Structure formats: structure tokens, C-alpha cells
């Protein structure tokens, strides 16, 4: 998960102020701000949930994510943002954004998707996991009424991106699966206005919901937290198998996907685990799926472990490349050569990244400028929207 950093809940006022100013200029938040005394407030924004089954005695079973929470009347699911109202399941986060910012697309990270462009990035409260290393726990592990937020309609969000010539909406920071309905509608609105949509997710979503969502999205980044059930169970309060299923579905759908693995010392840094993961990704996603091994920093409930040694990340990268993956990156280590994209044929740098400064001069029309080897990715907005249109029409 990318850190909100300046976008945390506590600093929402400061950051959203900047983001909101930009949006206000576009007329997006002006009405909302006027109605709310220009001050984000803890609030809920209720709307019918899309994925649930009714059960006897006014209970429901949520079918959005693999937890399939059985929720009694007036209770909430594990995510904390869906509530049963007399047998009707409701999302409480339809557009009440607690984070709103314009980020480089590389921050997501997406390295093979419109490099050097910006993404209007949004989040609501809530998550369907509880990772003990969560960088954004101050929004992801909270309920909507516990964080300050502004309500922004899907069309307004898409319109703001278009007016500001930001090509992409990013649903990110917390866990967008839990604000599925808003993401779905915003992505559809964006699609109508020529704006792409990327989901930055833990991949904890059931297949039917994912397939429907993919009709609107243009790219997905999945955090593959580890490659053992033990890690998922003990560190994330979740399961690995559904995440692997998500990656299989994404490969089947054909949407551009990148994978991030946060390497945490002693917990998921074993060579065998990395090798097994790389082989599975190769087999399932193919050799061209971009994979990012990111450095862990102590936070939230894991403060007793050191930051990931650089040597561990470099070893993981080597293992993955030896397994046959062609585009393997090192993350959260600024200025490292593992941030660049290299041509798998001539080994020349095709995209150079120094922090968020991007030099794509080595990439010409989606090919290596030196040897013309095709480099897989989504390099133009037209390409992004075209692949989405194919999926939307049943392709």
C-alpha cells in the first residue's frame, strides 16, 4: 500500500485544502464546502450496497470480499463501512473522501502505465484486512464517522480530473474494495469523460465483483503481502488464496496489472518464499508482469523490526529475475538502479526514474528506442481507454 504521507487523516485539512482548492477551482467542491462550512466533518454517506445476499431474520451475507461477513441487523461487516439496515445492506462511504490529492502515477506504484503522468487519488475510511504494518492505518483502520471527510459525487470527481487534464483517477491509500460502489460509479463517470481509473488494492475481492469492476478500470495494482497463508493469517488477518485468485482473474481479464511485495525482515523475506512467488507469478501472469519489491519501515503494530536491508531487496529482485520475470523493481529506495525499466533484450534503460522525475526518452512508441523490442505496458491514454472498452464490450 502506498503511504498517504501528507494525505493522512490527521493532516487532511492541510492537504485536502490544497487538493480541494484545485477542485474548488473546477467547481467540484464549492457546493459541498459551502454546505459544510468549508470544514471536512466525520460523516457517513449511505447508499445501497451492490453485493450481498439477504438471510433470515433481517441478516445479510456480504458477497463483496472473501470474508463473506454475515451481518446482523444494525451491525457492520469487518470493513467497518458497510451496515445492515433492517436486512438492506448499505455502504456508508459513497463518496465521503477522507483523502484527496494529485500524485505521480509512479507513487502508486504503476511503472508501466502512463509514466510521468499524474493521478487524482482518493480514499475513504476502511479496509477489509488489518495488516500490522499498514502505512495508512489512521484511515484504513477507522470507521467513516471517525475521520474527517468531504462528499464528492462521482461525476464531479471525474470532471475535476478532466478539467485539470489529469488522465487518471486512482482509488488508493486505504482499501478501495470497501468503497466499491463509489469506485465503480466514479470509474464509469470517468470513462465517459475520457479519464482512466486505477485501483490500488490488496486484491481481497470476490470474483464476480472484480469482473464487473474491471469493465470500468484501466489498471490494477495488487499488494501481494507474502506467499504463505501463515503470513496472511497472522499478520494481515486474511487469507492468501483469494488474493492469488484475484491475480488469476486479472490475468484472465487482461487488464494491466502490477504487483507489489513489501518485504518485511524475518516475516516474508525467505529466499524460498520469494522464489516460489516469482515462479507462481511467471506461470499465472506471464514474464511481463511488473513486480515491485518494496522496503518496509517500522510502523503501526510492527515497530520492533528494522527497515528492510537493501541487500534483501536486491536478492529478492535477483531471484525473481532468475525465475524469468522481466520487469522487477525495487521500491521505497530512492535513486536505486532497480527503479529503472530496462529493455530485456539490449539491457538499455528505457525509462529512467530518479525519485518522481521520469525520463522516458528510451521508450519510443512502446518499444525500446535502441533495439525496438516491444516493452509491455499502457503507454498512451488512448491505449488505456481502448483496452477498457474491449473488456466493457465483453472482450
Amino acid at each position, binding site marked *: 500500500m502506498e503511504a498517504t504521507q501528507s494525505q493522512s487523516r*490527521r493532516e487532511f485539512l492541510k492537504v485536502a485544502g490544497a487538493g480541494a482548492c484545485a477542485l474548488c477551482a473546477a467547481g467540484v467542491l464549492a457546493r459541498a464546502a459551502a454546505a459544510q462550512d468549508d470544514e471536512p466533518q*466525520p460523516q457517513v454517506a449511505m447508499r445501497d450496497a451492490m453485493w450481498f445476499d439477504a438471510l433470515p*431474520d*433481517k*441478516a445479510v451475507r456480504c458477497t463483496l470480499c472473501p470474508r463473506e461477513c*454475515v451481518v*446482523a*441487523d*444494525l*451491525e*457492520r*461487516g*469487518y*470493513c*467497518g463501512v458497510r451496515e445492515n439496515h433492517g436486512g438492506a445492506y448499505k455502504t456508508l462511504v459513497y463518496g465521503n473522501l477522507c483523502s484527496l490529492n494529485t500524485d505521480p502515477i509512479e507513487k502508486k506504484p504503476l511503472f508501466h502505465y502512463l509514466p510521468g503522468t499524474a493521478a487524482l487519488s482518493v480514499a475513504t475510511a476502511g479496509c477489509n484486512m*488489518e495488516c*500490522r504494518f499498514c502505512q495508512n*492505518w489512521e484511515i484504513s*483502520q*477507522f*470507521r467513516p*464517522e*471517525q*475521520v474527517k471527510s468531504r462528499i464528492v459525487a462521482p461525476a464531479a470527481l471525474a470532471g475535476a480530473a478532466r478539467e485539470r487534464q489529469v488522465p487518471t483517477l486512482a482509488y488508493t491509500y486505504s482499501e478501495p474494495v470497501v468503497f466499491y460502489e463509489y469506485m465503480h460509479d466514479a470509474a464509469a463517470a470517468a470513462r465517459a469523460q475520457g479519464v482512466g481509473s486505477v485501483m490500488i488494492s490488496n486484491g481481497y475481492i470476490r470474483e464476480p465483483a472484480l469482473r464487473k469492476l474491471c469493465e470500468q478500470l484501466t489498471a490494477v495494482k495488487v499488494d501481494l503481502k507474502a506467499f504463505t497463508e501463515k503470513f496472511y493469517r497472522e499478520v494481515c*488477518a486474511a487469507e492468501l488464496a483469494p488474493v492469488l485468485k484475484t491475480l488469476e482473474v486479472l490475468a484472465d481479464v487482461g487488464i494491466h496489472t502490477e504487483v507489489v511485495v513489501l518485504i518485511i525482515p524475518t516475516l516474508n523475506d525467505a529466499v524460498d518464499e520469494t522464489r516460489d512467488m516469482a515462479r507462481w507469478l511467471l506461470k499465472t501472469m506471464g514474464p511481463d508482469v511488473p513486480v515491485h519489491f518494496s522496503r518496509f519501515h517500522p510502523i*503501526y*503494530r510492527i515497530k520492533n523490526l528494522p527497515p528492510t536491508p537493501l541487500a534483501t531487496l536486491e536478492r529478492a529482485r535477483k531471484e525473481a529475475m532468475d525465475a524469468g520475470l522481466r520487469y522487477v523493481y525495487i521500491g521505497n529506495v530512492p535513486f536505486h538502479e532497480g527503479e529503472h525499466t530496462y529493455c530485456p533484450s539490449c539491457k538499455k534503460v528505457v525509462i529512467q526514474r530518479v525519485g518522481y522525475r521520469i525520463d522516458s526518452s528510451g521508450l519510443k512508441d512502446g518499444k525500446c528506442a535502441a533495439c525496438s523490442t516491444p516493452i509491455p505496458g499502457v503507454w498512451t491514454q488512448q491505449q488505456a481507454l481502448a483496452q477498457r472498452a474491449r473488456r466493457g464490450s465483453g472482450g
Partner: protein
Amino acid sequence: MVTRREFLVEVGVAAAAAGAAAALPRTLRAFDVAPPAPAKSRVVVIRDKALAAEDLSAAKAREFLQEAAKALGGAKKPGDAWAKYFSPSDRVGIKVNCLGLPTSPPVALALADALGAAEVAPDRIIIWDRLNRELAAAGYELRGSGAGVRCFGTDALAARGNGGYDADIATSGEIGSLFSRIVTDETSALASASVLKDHNLAGLTCGLKNFFGAIHNPNKYHSSGCSPFVADVCAHANIRGRLRLVVCDATRPQYHGGPPSRPRWQWPYGGILVGADPVAVDRIAAMVLDRKRKAEGLKSLEEDGRPIRYLAAAEERGLGTADLTRIEVVSIGQPWMDV
């Protein structure tokens, strides 16, 4: 039909009253030289038809609470009884449960009023739960300031940040949570004024699970029958160090279909359970619930796949005892097992 477990409790009560040691054979009496067994956890169950009345008043509930407190503490005067648990210097938080079937306001108000016998000033008492709107919906009169007993939700302290929850993540066993600032900032002592009701996941909601309402993220901790999470919340110093008394409202409890309020499964038990051992209170409360379920032709909670898993975890964490041989039930009025 009295089950073996219920029989043990009954025998325990009878044995305590009769001085059973004298009846033991000589070989067993040799154990008399061993250190005395730890005192049993006492749970008082006071019952009366008046407690089941729909128009129950706080004044009437207070009369019964005073009797229960005297029986619990072995005191002759209410003041002496309450003084065992609370002192005038305490700032007391009475945690009620307002989600679904709520703690009856007359019972919570009676408890607040009764604390006067321990010379706890009314303005040092807060009746609280998570949200103002939930308290209001349950019939509580919100009162944020003034000379009397105050009543408000954690969200009333949202101006202090984090929606009214403490700034620092608190860990205990499996849980990592922010505690309500009502606990951390406003109280030195707690009473769990819970309500006895069935829970679709935990099996039971009573004195211990009530404190899920003290953390910001209870939604994360409902798997595995809420175990060990309920125990972990209550084992944190914020709760363990403050909890003095459990008062369980069983005036009109709900034996099935909880936690939402479902009147068709509520019945006029007309009882209040009081104890200083929260595990023991929950254990006896579960027996009341199970006995009613059987009487109504339902499976027991265990047979229904909802055993009260968190009780063993709570016992392991030293929060009290779920061992029926170490619980003494003092029944006042109608027998407690007569459901």
C-alpha cells in the same frame, strides 16, 4: 431437568451454606491443613416481577440494586456495599450497551444513583457508549455538562481528535485499538452496565463484550466467536485496571436473534445480575440464556455452534473464573435458574 453443570453450581451454593467439610470422610479432611482455597467469585442474581415491568422506574430498580450490592459485598448497609467497589475520589464510567436491545435506562440510572451511597458525586459519573445517537435512540437523555450525572457518547469528544478515541494505538494480545477517551481521559473506574442478550457471532453479549464499545475498531474482532478478542480488550490495563463491577440488565433479556432487538425472543426474566468478577457474571448469564433456549425448544448456544469461546480466554488472562465450582451464585427472589 437440571444439567450437571447447573447441579454443580447449586451444590456449590448449598455446600457453602452448610459447611460441607464437616461431612467429608476423614481422608479428605486431611486436606484441611492445606492453604485455604481461593474465595469463590460471587454472582448475585436478584429477581422480581417488578423488574420485568415495562414501566420499571429507576427508583424501583435502585431498591433491588441496593439489595444485590449488599449481598455481593456481605454488607448490611448499601453504603458499605458500594464502598467496596467505588470511592468518592473515583470518576466512574457506566458503560451501557445501546446497539440493538439496549441496557434499560432505569437500570443504568439506578446504578448511577446508587453510587451516591459510596459518596461518588453525580457529576463524577458518566453513562456512556459509542455514539450520542445510539444513546438517544435507546432512551437515554444526553447531558454533556452540568451538576448531575452526565451521559454522552465517545463521539461527543471528537473535537479532541480521532473521533473521540485516544491518540495512541493500544495493543493487548491480538487486538490493536484506540480506546475511547471517556475511558482514558474521563474515568478512573468503570462499571459494565450490560444487557443480557443472544449474539449471532459471540453467542452472548454481557459484561465483557460490552467493552467492544470502548474501542474504535470492534468490527475487526468478530471472527472466531469474538475470541480471544473480547478477552484481549478487557485484559488491557485501560479496562482491567478500572473495571470494578458488572451489572447485567436481565430484566427483559433476549434468548435468540440478537444482538438486534427482537421482541418475540425477549422474556420477562425480571432479573439483575451483579458481580465483581466479569467472567463469572458472563458464565452465569450464559447459563440463564441457555436454560431459556432449551425451555423454548432451541439448541443450546454450544449446540448451535456458538459456544462462548471468549470465556476461556478471559479466564486465561486472569480476568476471573468461568469454573462453576469456583462460582457462588446468591439468588434473591425467584430462583435464578427458573426461567
